[in-house]
């Protein structure tokens, strides 16, 4: 697919075919692409706008409820508020300089430059390329779609150290991390001049950019910040599994925008991404529940929801290039691995990742990234032809994973330290006991 993007000479000829084929992913920002007059198909525009709205919905209320339901009632609003304000802040950062840093047209392998800060030069007639030569979508729509990715990613991190960090510290940390980890990595993976894009890494909808990126930053955070007061002694059961389930379901619903929208067009390739997003998730939820049922006789709702999210994370990089049966297998694998991680490894290592951001997003993201290298092969049901080498691609995938882990890990560590010096990270123990809703927001979630 990535090759196709470079052979613009064949464009006209390939139009009919390409429309029905899966394409790599969300790059393509220059305003004109093909030789003939580029076509803006309103069907694509319609789908991309729907997708953008869906990804916002994933974030608020989706992610907010999934996380919020899992904390104690006294911290519910802190989760909702953090997710909301982080998303809003990143949206403003995105149009101010984030879009430019990621897709500004610069040719550095590490960032997009400042050519489009404050959306300089973009108007309602500007177009962005899709993966089918000759087909474009309005640049504003591309900006919106990518903006929603930037807005949800930092929000994923908060789950790891939920219930114990100061609100202003959360915001400061996120401003730094998003600027120095998210924007560059988005460029590296999705922009045609990006390091990992050039390397040939396959990351259809953001396994590295979103999940590994956020997951490792979360992990570093819970090591730096430490355990919750009362961890292991007090009952910290989810205050509302109902909200958590609603949130997880909304994540699945919105994830169609996330994964299928990453195709940038409404065609057969989008259909492939969609069916994979259905069946991998279903298989993962079934698997997690099955493992629980075998292991302790009862399948829990939290287990099914966790499996769902793990499946969604794993299929994210893979959904454009593997087949539905590969997707089912992937869903199975990721649930087994993540289950093992959050129940055995976490307990053994004794860190307090409140909502298992590392165990689900980072570990699941790595499983997905590596499986993409394998299951994309044609003989395993993927879309790649005979020239495709699993070994070669797996090496590339590994490099992409490793680079993301190191980059984001380092940026996160520095950002936590800066934040700690400026504002301090944790609230007082007494405040933690009282709950962040009162202390940080002056409200109570429920007055029944």
């Amino acid at each position, binding site marked *: 697919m990535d090759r196709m993007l470079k052979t613009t000479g064949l464009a006209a000829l390939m139009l009919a075919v390409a429309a029905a084929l899966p394409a790599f992913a969300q790059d393509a920002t220059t305003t004109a692409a093909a030789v003939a007059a580029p076509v803006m198909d309103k069907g694509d525009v319609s789908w991309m706008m729907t997708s953008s709205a869906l990804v916002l919905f994933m974030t608020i209320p989706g992610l907010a409820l999934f996380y919020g339901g899992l904390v104690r009632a006294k911290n519910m609003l802190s989760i909702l508020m953090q997710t909301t304000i982080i998303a809003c802040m990143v949206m403003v950062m995105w149009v101010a300089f984030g879009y430019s840093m990621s897709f500004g047209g610069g040719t550095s392998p590490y960032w997009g430059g400042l050519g489009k800060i404050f959306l300089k030069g973009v108007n309602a007639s500007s177009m962005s390329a899709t993966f089918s030569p000759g087909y474009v979508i309005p640049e504003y729509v591309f900006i919106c779609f990518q903006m929603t990715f930037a807005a949800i990613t930092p929000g994923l991190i908060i789950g790891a150290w939920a219930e114990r960090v100061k609100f202003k510290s959360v915001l400061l940390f996120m401003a730094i991390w998003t600027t120095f980890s998210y924007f560059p990595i988005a460029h590296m993976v999705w922009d045609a001049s990006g390091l990992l894009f050039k390397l040939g890494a396959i990351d259809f909808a953001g396994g590295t950019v979103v999940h590994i990126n956020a997951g490792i930053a979360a992990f570093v955070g819970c090591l730096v910040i430490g355990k919750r007061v009362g961890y292991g002694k007090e*009952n910290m*059961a*989810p205050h509302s599994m109902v909200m958590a389930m609603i949130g997880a379901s909304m994540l699945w619903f919105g994830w169609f925008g996330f994964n299928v929208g990453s195709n940038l067009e409404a065609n057969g390739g989008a259909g492939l991404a969609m069916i994979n997003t259905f069946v991998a998730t279903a298989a993962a939820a079934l698997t997690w529940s099955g493992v629980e049922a075998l292991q302790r006789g009862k399948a829990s709702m939290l287990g099914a929801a966790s499996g769902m999210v793990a499946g969604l994370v794993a299929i994210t990089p893979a959904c454009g290039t593997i087949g539905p049966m590969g997707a089912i297998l992937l869903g199975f694998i990721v649930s087994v691995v993540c289950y093992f991680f*959050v129940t055995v490894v976490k307990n053994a290592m004794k860190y307090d990742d409140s909502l*298992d951001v590392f165990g689900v997003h980072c570990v699941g993201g790595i499983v997905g990234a590596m499986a993409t290298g394998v299951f994309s092969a044609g003989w395993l049901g993927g879309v790649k032809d005979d020239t495709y080498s699993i070994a070669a691609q797996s090496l590339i995938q590994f490099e992409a994973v490793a680079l993301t882990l190191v980059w984001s890990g380092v940026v996160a560590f520095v950002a936590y330290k800066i934040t700690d010096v400026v504002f301090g990270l944790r609230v007082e123990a007494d405040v933690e006991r009282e709950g962040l809703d009162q202390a940080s927001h002056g409200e109570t979630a429920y007055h029944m």
Partner: protein
Amino acid sequence: MKLIVAAIKPFKLEEVREALTAIGVRGMMVTEIKGFGLQSGHTEIYRGAEYAVNFVPKMRLEIVVSDGLADQVVDTITKTARTGKIGDGKIFVIDVSHAVRVRTGETNDDAL
């Protein structure tokens, strides 16, 4: 007057209330409580974190009656709330020195 405090199984509440009404009790206060006793709670596991819930839900009844009615109330509750299984509950009797009906200011037995 006596204050009778009873902890019973929640699904027995309606039956007990009816039985007490039948013998002339005209009021009570009911509280949802967590009971701790011989009846054991349960364990919940959330992604590998195990929480022992040592309390079981019970209903706590408070009924103030004239001294004469007290024994009958205790008997009635005992009979009606009994299932024979562990956790059926307890009844305690306490002396009340004074009672007032807020609406009218009536006191003691008249207030009940």
